[in-house]
């Protein structure tokens, strides 16, 4: 057990998503509330393209993650897929978003080349500020950061994340092969504690989606309700969890995670079977929209070797 890049998604999985069996999808989309809306042209074009579109699961996740970023927001960008999601959002619907990178970088344009770490040289060229970690963390503590993006190894039904000790923190310093030591918080705990909204990207497997995590590296909604307020956290909490199987959100009152959309081709039953608690499903469950041609073109041009999106 352990978290490897290669395990980030399991197996080769290029999803063939064909719309052939749903020729009237454009109409259906506009048919909410029983009213037919006229099919507008861009949507029609999109669906025509979608008929012959292949994409990988990481590509779908990057596109879904990018859509969580709103134009003009300040985003605390975590490492790995969030690096791509931020760049994609900047190139598509959120051109005025600003990115904070915990090493001390602030950018208002995407880096010109794909990043393997936020410290890569292309992330510094053209930045609007290069400074210290403390300054950026301080601004986030002050309330400047609208949303932060992190990954996770384990999550529970209130969105608490563990990236430290699988099996729980041992009580002594004696080595204990019964647990797995993961790398730790990095900036994840800070982003989870202080950003106005937390966005999470992670694999959806039963062993990772637990009723209760063994160790809280990054606080979600604790035990639910107004827990964050009671422990002294100033704001925030998870807004969305983008997984390899769907997108999950949180009940505004109980703060319990629920399934908001399933990815194309992934049955709800499969998601429930891969969740370690009795996952609630939205009454208006949707299907995660696949990446558009424009999104795919950008992702593939940005990650030409497919390191992040074809691994």
């Amino acid at each position, binding site marked *: 057990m352990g978290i490897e890049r290669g395990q980030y998604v399991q197996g080769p999985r290029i999803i063939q998503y064909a719309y052939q069996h749903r020729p009237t999808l454009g109409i259906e989309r506009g048919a909410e509330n029983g009213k037919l809306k006229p099919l507008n042209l861009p949507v029609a074009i999109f669906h025509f393209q979608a008929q012959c579109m292949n994409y990988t699961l990481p590509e779908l996740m990057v596109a879904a993650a990018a859509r969580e970023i709103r134009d003009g927001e300040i985003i605390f960008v975590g490492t790995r897929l969030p690096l791509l999601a931020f760049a994609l959002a900047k190139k598509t619907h959120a051109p005025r978003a600003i990115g904070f990178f915990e090493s*001390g970088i602030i950018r208002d344009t995407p880096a010109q080349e794909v990043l393997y770490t936020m410290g890569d*040289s292309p992330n510094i060229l053209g930045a609007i500020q290069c400074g210290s970690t403390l300054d950026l963390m301080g601004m986030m*503590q002050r309330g400047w950061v609208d949303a932060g993006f992190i990954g996770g190894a384990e999550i529970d039904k209130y969105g608490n994340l563990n990236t430290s000790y699988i099996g729980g*923190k041992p009580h002594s310093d004696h080595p204990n*092969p019964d647990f797995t*030591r*993961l*790398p730790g*918080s990095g900036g994840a705990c800070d982003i989870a504690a202080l950003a106005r909204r937390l966005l999470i990207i992670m694999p959806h497997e039963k062993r990772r989606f637990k009723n209760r995590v063994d160790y809280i590296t990054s606080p979600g909604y604790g035990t639910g309700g107004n*827990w964050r307020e009671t422990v002294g956290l100033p704001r925030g909490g998870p807004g969305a969890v983008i997984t390899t199987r769907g997108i999950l959100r949180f009940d505004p009152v109980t703060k319990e995670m629920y399934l908001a959309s399933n990815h194309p081709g992934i049955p709800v039953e499969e998601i429930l079977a891969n969740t370690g608690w009795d996952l609630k499903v939205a009454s208006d469950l949707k299907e995660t929209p696949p990446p558009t041609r424009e999104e795919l073109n950008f992702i593939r041009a940005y990650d030409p070797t497919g390191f992040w999106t074809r691994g």
Partner: protein
Amino acid sequence: MNRKILSMQEAIARFVRDGMSIVAGTALESLIPFSAGHEIIRQGRRDLTLIGPISDILFDLLIGAGCVRKVVAAWVGNVMMGSGYNFRRAVEEGIPHPIDVEDHSNFTIALALHAAALGVPYLPTKTALGSDLPVNHPGMKEIGCPFTGEKLLAVQAIHPDIAIIQVQRCDPEGNAHIWGNTGITGDAARASRSLILVTEEIVSPDIIRSDPNRTLIPGFLVSAVVEEPWGAHPSPVQGYYNRDHGFYKDYHEETKTLEGFQKWLNRWVKGVETRHSYLQLLGEERIQELKVKKEALSAPANFGY
């Protein structure tokens, strides 16, 4: 000759002793002083406490080589690839020997060093509240604000014995220019009792004084200056060389087993005497590939009056 300027061997021999606490890798993924780490391994230091934010593979390497007794860090692993196998082996199996870990976040480690740099015993924050980081942590304690009563986390100051910091350029006194992200470097320099500066090049004091805003470390903080071109490889140094992604990937693959790590260590650290021979091993072709391809000079700032 300025008496601060030393070879890497001399600087490590003189300033790094068994049992010391060392802060390193302070700019996060860039400017990591790998050449200093390699020399510490070659000189066989033991029982070190390593302090830092993420350290990329530097801490993993020192742990695997048996130099480390304790880690005080936010993250230990291989940023691009994931787990650090030596860190895992040490914590999970006690190989090559058990280590203590004090978990921080990037913000709390920055605050701990900032407190030391300011000369105060702790600083309050709202991060990590509700997380398990402060549970049984000797350097974190929940407190009430003396003015408003609200819950705060007190993060105790950390005073490392020594900081090892990689920079682009400095003068012979160690007045140092850094550009790009600085992470927690400024606070680490001011928090520590001594400081080894590893520089890509030593330049004249006039160059430093031509742009004093770019000076992150004033020379009076510096104990030793080591001129070591490519001292940060495989991490990047803006304006000098790029990150060697393949090196991190290979490290990840080759250190999965203990035997693999020993082979890696013998090849890249124990089998070379100096940075010069390390670079020969790396090969001219790879070095050319990593060099900066296209200059991007900043506009000059007018300091005249």
